[in-house]
């Protein structure tokens, strides 16, 4: 499947699962913030994607993609904010983010709220390609 096909598929899953209008969805929209999805909605979206692509993407896959190889204790500061290492990782995993705007004030446990439709599309495309190889 092409990137565009996966994006269209995800758009359809979002419309069905969350009930948002298609026009509201864009690659840059965050799932939990802009589109108002809750964790149950996200599960619904992932199940729908899995049925349509044959590839299973889980919540753990999403957080693993965001956090990379950085262990929990290095990803956040003692105050629960994103650490310098965490911010460096976000530059790689969520390249659309202006990490400087988060430095010293963004809680690590809110990182999932930065995850966009485009990030999900890339993750699904990557999972499809891993499965095919």
């Amino acid at each position, binding site marked *: 499947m092409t990137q565009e096909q996966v994006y269209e598929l995800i758009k359809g899953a979002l419309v069905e699962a969350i009930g948002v209008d298609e026009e509201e969805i864009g690659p840059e929209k965050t799932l939990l913030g802009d589109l108002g999805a809750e964790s149950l909605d996200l599960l*619904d979206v992932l*199940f729908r994607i*899995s049925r349509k692509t044959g590839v299973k993407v889980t919540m753990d896959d999403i957080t693993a993609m965001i956090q990379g190889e950085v262990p929990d204790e290095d990803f956040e500061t003692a105050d629960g904010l994103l650490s310098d290492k965490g911010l460096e990782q976000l530059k790689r995993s969520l390249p659309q983010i202006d990490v400087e705007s988060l430095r010293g004030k963004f809680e690590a446990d809110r990182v999932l709220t930065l995850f966009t439709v485009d990030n999900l599309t890339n993750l699904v495309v990557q999972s499809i390609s891993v499965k095919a190889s």
Partner: protein
Amino acid sequence: MEIKIGIDLAFVAKIKKLAESSPEFLEEVFTETERSYCLGKKRCFEHLAARFAAKEAFFKAIGTGIGGGIGWKEIEVRNHFRTGRPYLNLAGKAEEMLASRQIVSVDLSLSHTEELAIAQVALLLE
């Protein structure tokens, strides 16, 4: 001593919709014990929603959030055989975290109506 709490609210209709549109939801999120307890009841989706809320409340109390490595089925709601009082039966990484975070007690409370289910988890740390 320190107490950490987590609370969550789940819409019964959303749980019903997801269970019906994606049957794998029940298999992947709820243990066999939970499924057999809830699916035998007349208002099964209220009971499932309460259990889903309990899992989310635990994630919030322990601070990992969803996707933090703890599997849904590692947080299981059971009911005391005599009193019916719900409690959490933890396994895998969820159970490991109890020890690593010096949690000495886990308490759970549930309530539900036709529309909503609510769960609160309280963790007592040494």
